[in-house]
């Protein structure tokens, strides 16, 4: 028996398609991520362990070569996993564009899988609507419609449809319609079946989906109560993001795009966070996004024709554990992630976010750092000056599953390996094609000053800045250009931190405008791709 010993912890994130495991240990007095492996979940725990040990034997202390098995046995295991059974929901509403749209978005953002959506203006016959609802196998029913200042008979009709299609005692009913109809709707169902929540469309001009989303999250938790909530990745990842935000006094956006679901967590410096969980928002769901193949083809530029992209998207759904072998399939996959992220931030790009953290295999294990940065940059469009990083070791989920009193300690101890920086983005909007978007002077302490970099609207330029380095930015926006916050001075000073990509000066606007002509579009996309791929040898 060797006399050498070490303290270890095993971080495991079991996803619906891929399982990730990392070993952290004390290295020269500090906790570091020693090694990390990822494999299809279906390969099993024994194979995951074998993969870890192979890596540890190859890269770890040679004196421990025969000890790793025993050391892993004694290691603290910290694990999170994807929800095994996503809640299934039927949404019934008066109008597709108003109440139906709000209800569905709130439901999807709360982590529900919408199995059936029926509205009274969906063009179907009453008989067809009834038949669809009678055949739906769901865990809960969401009914919405009518404004709060009126007793809409149509809203009551929507509730009556559910009452007619649902077996008694077969799942809760959530009423999210006119406040005046709450008692009437409750009277349509058995006692205790209906819970009432604030109308997400109280009048024609307002949309307030927050209370409904929170309520739906609570109902979902009650339904999947057999799973320990803290260990669910959709809960653990946002907890880790929120802890990082409060520790660092930062506003952090965490985006996790998995094989099946996706999580959007916006955490404030005070530790509060707004979380949206999209149970079908992961890569497998990309094929179901309306017009997905055409959109992905358009924004990828080099993923092949629309038919080939459609097959790739279906492959992501049908074979979620496989990996792209061809460059065009990788391009389509990454473009699909950009599309999915853009769908998650459809309320508008977040402003004044200090850090965007990307997670999920496609982002965190992207073969090229520039590609990971681009998925976050193009998907989120974070206006202003923002650091970009990835959860390359898949450690945030497991750390977020720690008890309240330990999570901060875990995040702090692993600070050096928590996320891997990709660099800092400067995103502006406004202006017209070709005009000056911004003039940026990059000053690195101890380095000679360079001439300002001029970025035109539609351009993306990268200034190398390696990980661990910092630079002062002096940004002069062009006429009509904004970086989000209102400003009194014509110049903005900001600090940039480096990463594998560097400083990304992005004048492409929000949302990104692409040329209509195919050849022009492909040329522009290729230029952006090149900008993010260039100079890596020099800075990494």
């Amino acid at each position, binding site marked *: 028996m060797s006399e050498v010993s070490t303290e270890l912890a095993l971080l495991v994130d079991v996803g619906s398609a891929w399982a990730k495991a990392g070993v952290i240990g004390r290295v020269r007095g500090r906790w570091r991520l020693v090694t990390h492996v990822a494999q299809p979940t279906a390969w099993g725990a024994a194979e995951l362990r074998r993969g870890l040990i192979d890596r540890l034997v190859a890269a770890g202390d040679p004196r421990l070569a025969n000890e790793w098995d025993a050391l892993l046995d004694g290691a603290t295991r910290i694990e999170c996993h994807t929800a095994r059974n996503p809640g299934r929901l039927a949404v019934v509403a008066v109008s597709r564009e108003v109440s139906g749209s709000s209800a569905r978005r709130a439901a999807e953002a709360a982590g529900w899988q919408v199995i059936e959506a029926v509205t009274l203006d969906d063009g179907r016959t009453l008989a067809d609507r009834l038949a669809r609802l009678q055949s739906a196998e769901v865990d809960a029913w969401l009914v919405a419609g009518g404004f709060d200042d009126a007793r809409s008979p149509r809203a009551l009709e929507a509730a*009556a449809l559910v009452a*007619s299609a649902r077996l008694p005692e077969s799942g809760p009913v959530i009423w999210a319609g006119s406040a005046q109809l709450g008692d009437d709707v409750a009277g349509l169902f058995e006692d205790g079946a209906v819970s009432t929540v604030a109308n997400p469309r109280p009048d024609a001009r307002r949309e307030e989906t927050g209370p409904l989303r929170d309520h739906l999250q609570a109902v979902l938790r009650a339904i999947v109560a057999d799973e320990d909530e803290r260990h669910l990745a959709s809960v653990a990842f946002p907890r880790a993001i929120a802890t990082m935000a409060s520790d660092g006094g930062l506003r952090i956006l965490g985006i996790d795009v998995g094989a099946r679901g996706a999580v959007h967590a916006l955490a404030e410096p005070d530790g509060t966070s707004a979380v949206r969980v999209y149970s079908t928002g992961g890569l497998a769901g990309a094929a179901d996004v309306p017009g997905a193949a055409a959109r992905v083809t358009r924004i990828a530029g080099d993923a092949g024709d629309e038919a080939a992209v459609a097959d790739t998207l279906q492959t992501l759904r049908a074979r979620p554990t496989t990996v792209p072998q061809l460059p065009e399939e990788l391009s389509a996959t990454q473009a699909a992630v950009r599309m999915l992220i853009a769908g998650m931030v459809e309320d508008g790009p977040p402003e004044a976010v200090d850090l965007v953290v990307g997670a999920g295999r496609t982002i965190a294990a992207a073969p090229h750092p520039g590609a990971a940065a681009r998925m976050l940059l193009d998907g989120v469009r974070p206006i202003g000056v923002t650091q970009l990083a990835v959860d390359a070791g898949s450690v945030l989920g497991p750390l977020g599953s720690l008890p309240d009193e330990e999570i901060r300690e875990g995040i702090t101890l692993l600070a050096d390996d928590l996320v891997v920086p990709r660099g800092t983005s400067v995103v502006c909007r406004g202006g017209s094609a070709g005009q000056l978007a911004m003039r940026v002077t990059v000053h690195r302490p101890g380095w000679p000053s360079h001439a300002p970099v001029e970025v035109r609207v539609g351009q993306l330029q990268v200034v190398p800045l390696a990980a661990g380095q910092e630079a002062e930015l002096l940004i002069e926006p062009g006429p009509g250009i904004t970086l989000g916050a209102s400003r009194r001075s014509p110049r903005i000073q900001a600090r940039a931190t480096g990463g594998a990509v560097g400083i990304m000066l992005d004048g492409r606007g929000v949302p990104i405008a692409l040329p209509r002509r195919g050849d022009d579009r492909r040329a522009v996309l290729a230029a952006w791709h090149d900008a993010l791929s260039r100079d890596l040898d020099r800075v990494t």
Partner: protein
Amino acid sequence: MSVLHRVRLPVGATVLVEVGHSVEPAEVLATRRPASGGMSVPIASRLRRSAADAADLLAVRPGTALEAGDRIADDGHGREVLAPQACLFLGYDLDDGSALVAPLGPTEPVLGHVRGEVTSVTPDAIEIRVAGALVTGVGGSGKAVHGELRMAVHEPGDELRAGGIDVSATGRILVGGSRASAEALTRARAMGVAGIVVGGVLDKELRDFEAAQRRRREVGGARGDLAIVIVEGFGKVGIGAELFAWFRSHEGRVASVFGETARVYVYEADAPPPRRVLARPGNRVLALRRPFAGIGGELLRVLDQPHATGAGVVSRSALVRFEDGRTAVIPLANLEATGDLSGG
């Protein structure tokens, strides 16, 4: 061997079978009366009450199925409103004092589309034990059908061509190879083919075909359903050689195909060739991603170090000799072991 099949029952269905019954694919397991449209029945005016007052006199709740003559409301003093015909009570309009009801159409059968023995009956489902084998695909289209299995191509990598589908395929389940074009699908439908089991289909062609089916149904031109099950992947993807041989060995057997859920039951069949996600050296393997999707081979060895694919994705990889003579390094995640899994 046997597998369980679940038949979902719509709300309001009347079950006609009991546990222990033997059922055939075309047997009626339950009946239902679908609603056929909405109509208003005046309540308040007939009871000579205000709309609000009449609401308290309703005798039914939404969801109640009524026969013609059943009471919808009464005032306790001889005035009552009866259902004009068999209908489903949907709700009451407090503004105009009328009831919204959906007349029930003629009785429709609920078929199981499988042969087997009923093992459980609940208000929402009937479970049937099927004596046969189940093959699960990765995608599909169309409702449930059944028919005799028939090989429509000679090799697993062959395309199912329109020219190869004639009137003798009517009512059959055709087993194709690496692709069924939109033209072949259209031809199959025209010839009355019941179902198609195929290795791969171009998603765009499948969607175009589904759209055409939908349009035909809307104008009342579609008769019968063509169910399609894709067993390997999207694009031009052959059926694994072992699975193809298994289908060939069961040609002539009756099969049930569920397009939407991508399931194929083959009756009185032995188990299909096993698949395993983690292949070992010596295993027969099937590649799952382009450019080798649907091609079989032998896994020669697992590489010691992770390897980058042509796209740059680094992963554990294996050296595979494919049956077309090529040898390539393939990510282990993109391989399935198939056939005899004792190797390695």
